[in-house]
């Protein structure tokens, strides 16, 4: 029995041990399994890493090879400027991009096949600009961002939120100080116009009475300036793409330039004349340097394009390319750019505004339009040259200089059409072209249209356009129209000083 019990006990024990063994086995097996699994995974990892490294080495080799290829394209130049160096790097990355993507090659082939088809050129460029990963697009954003970064602090100094007190101070001061600044603009005109008006006496006498006002206002301004500081740039100087979103966000504030921007031009004017002069000098220097930067940026983009797509190196396609680049380049920065122009030309805008108010109800004849080119009294209803006025008002809608220029050209064409219409209504029989409209007729009408446009910012728009008009357009119809518009605008500015209506 005793044996039986142990026997049974042994059995149980054995069984238990078996179970335990199984359990142990299971556990160790599992451990083995996980271990081997881990080992395998490790091995895989190592292999993967090795592969990755190999791939990287390959990529690096390829990059170097492409870079060398890029360098060869620049081989002629012995000493490289930093810009050339950068260009070289960029070209390398373009080549790299083209190895990974097929579409640029297709465009290249297409370009070669249709070298004279300008729609291919614009198609290619819009294709690149819609592809954020392309090195040219990256450069575009970087350059835009750089300009923006320069513009923002200058423009925002004035955009800084103002307390109600400064606002009212400004408003009050605006009215009284206007006279000073208009005088000033007379003086400035004197220099260029060599007319012999002398207003310096009245300027000094006026400025004494206004000094107090101006000083208090200036003080308040500096206070608010300090308290708000310049709003810190959210975006760092590092030129990451992500920061560009901030730019867009910021710019959305300026979406409607005609509504929010007029304030920007004014504060520059309500400090006392000396400070104003100094400030103006500084602003002008800023403006010049930014204009230069923009030109440089566009040149860089253009030469990069031509480098990447050789067939573009022809006069016509180059122009098309340039136009497309500008169309992409300007819109995001234009509102800020215009704001700066408006600050610099604020005093001229004021003069324009003054004439505009003075001549609100003027008829074409009042600014010297020949009576044969005015609508006959009976055919009233809309204001004379209404279509041209409406067209001109659209100029602030576009954000690209080229488009604005086209708007001015259309305005002048409409003027000619209207004038022709009015004349034939006076003397229907004669359609002889010797009576066609020349500059003697055009300028008074254009002045009238500018006056009726209600757009003091026309002054700044024209000044900006002059900086960015293409050289090729300078002596053509576009150049002529812009020059005429500038003349008309300058004439309108001077109108309020000429006293009584003529």
């Amino acid at each position, binding site marked *: 029995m005793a044996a039986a019990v142990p026997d049974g006990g042994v059995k149980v024990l054995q069984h238990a041990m078996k179970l335990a063994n199984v359990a142990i086995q299971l556990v160790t097996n599992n451990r083995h399994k996980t271990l081997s699994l881990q080992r395998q995974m490790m091995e895989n990892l190592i292999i993967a890493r090795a592969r990755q490294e190999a791939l990287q080495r390959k990529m690096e080799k390829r990059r170097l090879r492409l870079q060398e290829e890029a360098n060869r394209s620049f081989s002629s130049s012995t000493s490289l400027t930093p810009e050339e160096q950068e260009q070289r790097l960029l070209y390398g990355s373009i080549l790299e991009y083209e190895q990974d993507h097929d579409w640029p090659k297709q465009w290249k082939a297409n370009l070669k096949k249709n070298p004279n088809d300008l729609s291919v050129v614009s198609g290619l460029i819009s294709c690149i600009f819609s592809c954020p990963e392309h090195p040219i697009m990256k450069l575009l954003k970087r350059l835009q961002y750089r300009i923006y970064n320069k513009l923002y602090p200058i423009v925002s100094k004035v955009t800084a939120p103002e307390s109600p007190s400064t606002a009212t101070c400004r408003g009050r001061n605006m009215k009284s100080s206007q006279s000073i600044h208009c005088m000033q603009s007379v003086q400035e005109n004197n220099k260029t116009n060599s*007319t012999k008006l002398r207003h310096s006496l009245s300027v000094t006498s006026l400025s004494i009475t206004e000094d107090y006002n101006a000083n208090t206002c200036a003080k308040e301004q500096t206070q608010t300036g300090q308290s708000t500081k310049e709003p810190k740039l959210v975006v760092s100087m590092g030129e990451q793409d992500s920061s560009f979103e901030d730019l867009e966000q910021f710019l959305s504030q300026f979406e409607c330039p005609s509504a929010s921007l007029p304030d920007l031009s004014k504060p520059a004017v309500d400090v006392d004349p000396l400070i104003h002069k100094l400030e103006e000098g500084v602003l002008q220097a800023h403006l010049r340097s930014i204009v230069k930067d923009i030109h440089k940026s566009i040149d860089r983009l253009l030469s990069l394009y031509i480098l990447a797509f050789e067939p573009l190196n022809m006069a016509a396609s180059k122009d098309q390319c340039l136009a497309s680049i500008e169309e992409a380049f300007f819109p995001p920065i234009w509102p800020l750019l215009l704001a700066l122009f408006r600050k610099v030309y604020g005093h001229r805008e004021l003069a324009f505004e003054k004439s505009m108010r003075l001549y609100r109800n003027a008829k074409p004849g009042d600014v*010297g339009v020949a009576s044969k080119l005015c609508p006959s009294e009976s055919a009233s209803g809309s204001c004379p040259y209404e279509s041209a006025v409406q067209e001109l008002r659209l100029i602030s809608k576009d954000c690209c200089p080229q488009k604005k220029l086209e708007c001015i050209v259309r305005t002048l064409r409409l003027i000619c059409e209207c004038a022709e219409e009015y004349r034939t209504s006076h003397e229907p029989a004669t359609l002889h072209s010797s009576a066609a409209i*020349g500059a003697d007729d055009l300028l008074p009408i254009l002045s009238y249209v500018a006056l009726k446009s209600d757009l003091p910012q026309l002054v700044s728009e024209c000044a900006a356009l002059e900086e960015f008009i293409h050289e*090729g357009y300078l002596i053509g119809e576009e150049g002529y129209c812009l020059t005429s518009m500038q*003349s008309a605008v300058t004439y309108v500015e001077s109108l309020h000083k000429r006293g009584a209506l003529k």
Partner: protein
Amino acid sequence: MAAGGTGGGNKTYSFKVVLLGEGCVGKTSLVLRYCENKFNDKHITTLQASFLTKKLNIGGKRVNLAIWDTAGQERFHALGPIYYRDSNGAILVYDITDEDSFQKVKNWVKELRKMLGNEICLCIVGNKVDLEKERHVSVQEAEGYAESVGAKHYHTSAKLNKGIEELFLDLCKRMIETAQADERAKGNGSSQSGTARRGVQIVDDEPQSAATAGGGCCSSG
């Protein structure tokens, strides 16, 4: 940088010519005559007589002329400089029956020489020779004056279409000479893109490369 690609011998010269003159001297009729003479009315651009273009072929050289009319009224005088900057030539018109208009021409000559130096080709034009009987500006005085300032003098009648073709042809030849001398002086500086802003542009010989968006008013082809 890549060269401009002006390899071929066929060049197109683009010249800007300003038209100066007092209100009633007939400068508008003058250019209209010039541009409408060979061609019909349809060639007047959408800007009518204020801005005209003309294509010429002079001894195998292509010339694109852009003729800029300016306002003659006194109140627009101050704005002259922005019109005539970068001009290659200027046509200064006076009315031979109006002494005053000749004085105005003298003023412009002074201003142009001061602002643009000797690079601009000046033409002084006595218009309305059909009214010879009422002449108030003597031929000797006018021609003497022109010579003294390095300008050429012409007599025209827009009404009779006299002397206009010669005037423009002569001017174009002189502008080409000036441009060529300029090129030589610059040592064939094709890489100097900065020069493009002043006046002469030498463009590849492509049909529409130099045409303005509005389309030239005239074409010689």
